[in-house]
């Protein structure tokens, strides 16, 4: 039973590890596209944390059905926040990619250290 209780935290552990992996790519990789991929992993980790919080034991998706006695629903609020955040995430990501494309055109490279050398 103790083990099962520990597994209740597994989602949060995965969140922490994904966050660390994303952050590692952002601070360590010199390739700008790789940095953006790292950033999107970081972002997904945060999404996972929010959606983990919404779960209620024995609940279902928050869509009300007629004729069900005492229904249990998972929390709809984190879902709303993350739903919009995903779409906003892709638009801001593409803004970043657009800048990377322009950097490539101006400097001929997207490796951070070479860009710094060129300046």
């Amino acid at each position: 039973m103790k083990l099962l209780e520990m597994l209740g935290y597994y989602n949060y552990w995965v969140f922490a590890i994904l966050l660390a992996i994303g952050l590692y790519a952002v601070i360590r990789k010199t390739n700008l596209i790789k940095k953006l991929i790292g950033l999107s992993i970081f972002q997904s980790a945060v999404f996972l944390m929010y959606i983990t919080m919404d779960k209620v034991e024995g609940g279902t998706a928050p869509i009300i059905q007629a004729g069900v006695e005492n229904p249990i629903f998972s929390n709809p609020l984190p879902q709303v926040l993350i739903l919009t955040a995903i779409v906003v995430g892709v638009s801001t990501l593409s803004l970043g990619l657009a800048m990377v494309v322009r950097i490539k055109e101006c400097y001929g490279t997207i490796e951070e250290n070479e860009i710094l050398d060129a300046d």
Partner: protein
Amino acid sequence: MIYIFALFLLTLLVITAVAIVRTEDLFVSVILTSIFSLLMAINFFILDAADVALTEAAVGAGVTTVIFLCALALTGDQEKPQKEGQNRGQKVALVVVGFLALLIIYSTFDNPRLGDPDAPVHQHVAPWYLEKTPEYMDFPNVVTAILSSFRGYDTLGEVFVVFAACIGVLFILGVSPPRKSLQVSVRKSGLRHHLIPQVVGRLLIPFIVLFGLYTQFHGEYGPGGGFQAGALIATGVILYALLEGEAEALRAVPRRVLLGMVVGGALLYGSVGVVCMLMGGSFLDYSVLAADPVWGQQLGILIIEAGVGMAVCGALLSIFHAFAARERLT
């Protein structure tokens, strides 16, 4: 049983993320990102977030991958290997992120466990939303109700962020590229000469677009809504562009129609709010739109969801075309 499956999926997520960061081939990295998003979508679904799973599958696994690939075609798909002298930096980075991860894991023991019904997050406004949705809006999907009415301000803000990001991309990539640089290979337009993608894709496109329209107009009753519908329809059109070439897609949906959708969608959302004010309510209070407040809510939500769908679809497609056009010019 389902939780064991979830544990398996979460472990796969971590493995995929490590592989994404480790590989030096950016193309492999991007394809793995797509798999990562798909795994994440299944996880969301297991955690009861059907709407979010739908969005993540359409946006994360579909649109993001295509936009990444478009960018890779312009910047080259190989990462330069790290030089020898930088290993110390790597150790420092590993120690820092490892320490951070351990710190967060340590702090999770104070969190309520997964599925705990007494967790603070379930005590605040969420029960009120669940209770009042049938009374105020009279439709089943609480997520749509919160998204478009209870928290309509937030969503208006998000739509404007999407709008602003789209305009930003168009500005940044709108300048004509320098003629010299870039040794990226010029590719043939579309997959016109590949039989299998051609046949399968053609069969799929109408159903993808139809499913998008279904999620748009059925969003009040099942999982779905403007954000998902916009992303799904954009995916369908992008698939068409990949199969037939970008010029054909632009002939089907011209650029000024796309811009009109982005601007018109955001404007439609905002103007519904203003109309609400003119009719004596507060900003984005749809109850005043019709004689019966419930009808007013439903009408308002229908219109603003249409605005959201148009804005998202137009923005994603405009961004895609901006990258694709760049490729053709250089």
